[in-house]
């Protein structure tokens, strides 16, 4: 802008007022902290690394992703590389402690525990993501509606949701199982339904924050109808929260499924399942057969922890 401006005549430089020598130009590596609000347009992508990269920098993400990847491999390829058939019973070898032949020992029916632990990942890793996706879709829709429409709708539906939440999910699952029987689809749906209100609650809160922003009336002034406001204006801003909820709920879905299986309302035997195996085997604890429960327990613990670590790092990245 100063190129076309007439330059003032050069004059003698007056003496500085400060008797100390003028400060040398900055020679540090940093610069100046400019305005937080008035920074020039950042060269796109130069200043802020993309979110993916931020994610990859976090150790919690690495650990979680690593463990999760291991179990995914087990789920997909487990039946191929497990040393024994997880369903094959060798009654003469039952209750053997871990040894070279059976790294995790055998269970009361003589089945190799290592194989059962490896292949047990499959059902869990099929059901829980699907259930969580179901819960996320339903919960987001519900939360959007409740948060945006508000008023009586929100109050009434809120009460219903609260009533649902008051019933322990174990009981809901049980009732479902009794009515329909054990089925993978059934379990998936039931876990999905149980988590829907929780997600709805979080989404609702996020929607209410967005509703108070000025871009909502601005959209109204453009003639946008409610549907567009909800989905094209508010939803994109709520998605980060939804993503975090998804990852968190995924961890708890594993938690829930394992608990259900332990109580007998989840995956039915003889399908290898960690929770079910623990339920079948833990009476052997006083007899000293610790491996039969410890290894499936560790499997559950590591999987859940892995997912939650990922969830935590996603949340940290999106919050910054």
């Amino acid at each position, binding site marked *: *802008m*100063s190129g076309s*401006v*007439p*330059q*003032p005549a*050069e*004059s003698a*430089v*007056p*003496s*500085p*007022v*400060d008797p100390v020598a*003028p*400060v*040398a*130009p*900055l020679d*540090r*590596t*940093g*610069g*100046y*902290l*400019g*305005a*937080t*609000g*008035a*920074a*020039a*347009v*950042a060269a*796109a992508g130069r*200043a802020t690394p993309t979110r993916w990269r931020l994610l990859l920098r976090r150790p919690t993400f690495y650990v979680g992703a690593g463990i999760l990847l291991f179990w995914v491999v087990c789920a997909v390829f487990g039946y191929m590389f497990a040393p024994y058939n997880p369903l094959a019973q060798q009654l003469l070898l039952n209750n053997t402690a871990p040894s070279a032949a059976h790294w995790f020992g055998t269970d009361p029916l003589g089945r190799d525990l290592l194989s059962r632990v490896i292949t047990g990942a499959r059902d869990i890793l099929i059901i829980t993501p699907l259930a969580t996706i179901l819960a996320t879709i339903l919960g987001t829709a519900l939360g959007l509606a409740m948060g945006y429409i508000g008023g009586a709708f929100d109050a009434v539906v809120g009460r219903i949701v609260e009533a649902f939440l008051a019933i322990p999910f174990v009981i809901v699952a049980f009732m479902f199982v009794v009515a329909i029987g054990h089925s993978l689809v059934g379990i998936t749906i039931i876990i999905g339904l149980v988590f829907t209100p929780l997600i709805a609650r979080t989404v609702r809160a996020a929607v209410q924050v967005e509703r108070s*922003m*000025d*871009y909502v*009336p*601005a*959209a*109204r*002034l*453009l*003639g*946008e*109808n409610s549907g567009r406001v909800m989905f094209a*204006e508010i939803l*994109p*801003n709520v998605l980060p929260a939804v993503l975090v909820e998804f990852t968190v709920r995924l961890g708890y879905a594993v938690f829930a499924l394992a608990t259900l299986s332990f109580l007998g309302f989840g995956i039915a035997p003889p399908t290898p399942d960690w929770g079910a195996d623990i339920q079948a085997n833990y009476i052997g604890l006083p007899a000293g057969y610790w491996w039969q429960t410890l290894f499936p327990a560790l499997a559950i613990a590591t999987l859940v922890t892995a997912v939650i670590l990922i969830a935590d790092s996603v949340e940290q990245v999106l919050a910054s």
Partner: protein
Amino acid sequence: MTADLGVTAPPPADQAPALSVSHMDVTYRVRGQDRLALRDVSFLISRGESYGLVGESGSGKSTAALALVRYLPSNGRVSGGTISIDGLDPLSMGTSALRDLRARTVSMVYQEPGRALNPSMRVGRQIAEVFEIAGQSSGDAQQSAEQMLRKVQISDPGRVMLRYPHELSGGMAQRAVIAMALARSPSLLILDEPTTALDATVEAEVLDLVAALRQEFDTSVLFISHNLAVIAKMCDRVGVLYAGELVEEGPARAVFENPRHPYTVGLLRCIPRRGQRKDTDRLDSIPGFLPTPGVTVTGCIFAPRCGLARDRCRQEHPPFFAVDEVRTSRCFFHEQAPDLPRATPVSVAAPAADGTGGTAGPLVDVERLSKTFAGGVQALAGVDVSIQQGETLGLVGESGSGKTTLARVLLGLTAPDQGSVVTLHGKPLNPDVRRRPREILRALQIVFQNPDSALNRRHTVRALISRPLSRLAGLSGAALRDRLEELIASVRLEDRHLPLRPSQLSGGLKQRVAIARAFGAGPEVVVCDEPTSALDVSVQAAILNLLADLQRKEQATYLFISHDLGLVRYLSDRIVVLYLGRVMEVGPSETVFDGPHHPYTEALFSAVPSLDLQRPDRIRLTGEIPSAADPPSGCVFHTRCPRRLPTGICESTEPPLHEDEPGHQIRCHIPLTELRELQRSPSVSSPHSESG
């Protein structure tokens, strides 16, 4: 009482100055890298002196305050230089010495008074805490606290002591905070934007209070603000900060009347002065942007934006030069600073379309507009306002005046009470925006105050500006693209901005996007709701020029809402003054400003600090703005009116809005002719005080 006296006497030789800052650097560590927030800042405050630190966002002024009391965030540190408060060095002190310093020697008051107080503790207790630290017993401390409250002109201190902070109004809370700050007669009082969040009349009271207490307690004051008028009023000397550097220093009056650094010159030119009008005098602006954080700058830090910059400026970092014995400027060419070339030409290219439609009816007409919210809060009561085609109607009022509600009703975002009439081109408007047809939506648009809230941060600029084009103007394809280009150019954005999201833009750019969006479909009326309040002064001027240009170009009509009276006067053709939901005065801009005017208008205008220093004595209003849920009887202003009639008519009867001069209406029992007489001589009978 006010401090625009010029140079103060030099301090007695044996007393240490209240504050001495010498070559201070403050560094923040951001993402593993060091960034300088303040660079080589030096200034001195003598005993009893008031020093102003002026700067826009990013100047580092708040950082300076926090550095002085050693309360920088954990990633910040004073990386160079020395500080001395009353002869003591806070940087090298141990914890208990620092505590002592904070308790006795230096106090701080900052922007939002409500948030500065613990919400779970009674106000009295919080003030008493200060005395307890001094060693008083809790009973004595309570007594002392009550006395301090009296000193800050809270007339029922006993009751206020028992209140919780959320029960106090902004003005009262700030007084309580000031009471806490001055309780132990500190040597230095630091004020960081103490009145920015307050209404004009309340602000004036608080500033007067600070000035009075300063004398009484003999406290030196460091006053930090972006508002030059306030600094001019309150401070003896001033330092101008830009991007972390002190660029000019000297007696306040001298610096503001005769600035000697191109930045100061530019800044002052951004502020509309008395007599300037949008049609004839465009505001100057400061081109360019603040330096990007993390970028090393060699040479003068202002050079990239300076109209006087030469090669030397870009290569050498200027030291301080003496302008005279008491003034300094960090510029090689400070003598030519007043001749800084303008960045924007003074006069406008095309003459303004004079408010046409003289015979045609008003474009927008509002009659008997009332709005009562749930709980009995009456935001608007019987408001009659009309907006002529092509004019800018300025809407002025403090909090509770109803100006935002009026705008919302006009736009259909809030439904008015039964019996209210709101028409456009004579035809009534549907009170619900969702039911308005497209043509109406097209005709009425708004520019919101806060672009962070008004622009959907997940949409690109292109999407944001294109939406009204497709939705309201029905454009698509090539026609849409052409209009988009046209709009971008008229708000001075560029193609490269289109794929960006709001978070990647500065405040000024965001507001331009919002303006482009508002003008997209060719509206007839644009409501500007404090469009520049969230922006820096230098950016503000550019946006105002833009608004004025667009009005000319698109023949738009504005409803301009602002608390900044200088802006309103500059931009508006006519002005409406609202108080507690009622119209107090309507008239042409200059008439309303110059008088004679309504006593409220009079008080409001005299309350706002201005750089134009020739003014009559201030009318001081006391008491708080009454609650809209329980308005006073008769004339709602009577509780604070300094010209209240002794006959009692003001308390009993609400005056009608009467037109004493053509085009000029006033709601007052005192006729205009009498007001003219009264307001000519500045002596005012002492106003009734109101317990508050």
